[in-house]
């Protein structure tokens, strides 16, 4: 179990480009569709908790899934797994950087990754909407939340908490 947690999250860590949200489809692919560690509903809860807690989504998800499956030990192993690839890659990049500037090549790849990052975030939005918005109340919360986020620079965590409180009120 511990070894599989380490390996799975290391795999996610290797492809965690573009900050947090672009990793959501990969986490879903591995944890829900592949290994069936979480149900579709538990996956929505995972993302909500990962977004509600400060820190990178991929790392937060690893800690939560690890804890859920195997307690604090599992949380440590999964977190280690998701962080190790980038720690190793930063150290390697620093070694190479001193010898030659590999910038032009990596710059092209990084620019090239941008469409995938945007498409992955959009795909995450689509699949969470398909799974998690089931009625008109949900649609209203999503539309209001989106308008507020686009027009005001509100803290995303605050918006999520307010939406959760709205949920408690409207679904009572």
């Amino acid at each position, binding site marked *: 179990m511990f070894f599989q947690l380490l390996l799975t999250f290391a795999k996610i860590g290797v492809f965690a480009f573009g900050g947090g949200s672009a990793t959501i489809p990969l986490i879903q692919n591995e944890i829900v569709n592949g290994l069936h560690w979480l149900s579709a509903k538990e996956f929505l809860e995972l993302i909500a908790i990962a977004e509600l807690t400060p820190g990178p989504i991929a790392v937060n998800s690893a800690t939560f899934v690890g804890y859920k499956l195997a307690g604090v030990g599992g949380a440590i192993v999964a977190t280690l797994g998701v962080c190790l690839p980038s720690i190793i890659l930063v150290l390697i990049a620093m070694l190479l950087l001193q010898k030659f500037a590999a910038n032009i090549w990596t710059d092209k790849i990084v620019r090239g990754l941008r469409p995938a990052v945007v498409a992955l975030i959009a795909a995450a939005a689509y699949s969470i909407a398909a799974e998690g918005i089931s009625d008109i109340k949900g649609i209203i919360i999503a539309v209001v939340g989106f308008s507020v986020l686009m027009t005001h620079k509100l803290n995303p965590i605050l918006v999520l908490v307010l939406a959760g409180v709205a949920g408690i009120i409207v679904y*009572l």
Partner: protein
Amino acid sequence: MLPLIRTEIVEKKRWVTSEDFLTGIAVSQSIPGSIAINTAVFVGNKVAGIPGALSAAFGAILPSFTAIVLVAVFFLRFRELTVVQNFMRGATPAIVALLAAAVLDVGKSALKGFTVIIITAALFLLLIYFHLHPVFALLISAALGLLLGRRR
């Protein structure tokens, strides 16, 4: 996040120069993983080698690790409560809003030019309707970047 790191590392502690810090950010952004943790590894390695890198990474991870474990302890105990379920039912649509806002936000700065927008739309459709593996989306995109990236 970055201004906070900068103030602490460059101005207060004077661990790295402003120029090195910029290199660190550039390296952090081109490598998978969180920018905060990658920058921590970069600065840690600059200041005190591999042990420094590992300590800095540990320090960057510890707060959110602790927070998630605490949240998990309570959530997993109380998740069946109606109040908790309804909170989640309300928060989930807001996550969709958050991601949609991120798409526009990142898209505005990252998607310049017709080709790039077509590639993004095509990848989105492949992900949604043909269940393209997310890793392949990244690989296809990077390969196209190498092939088509003439700028600079």
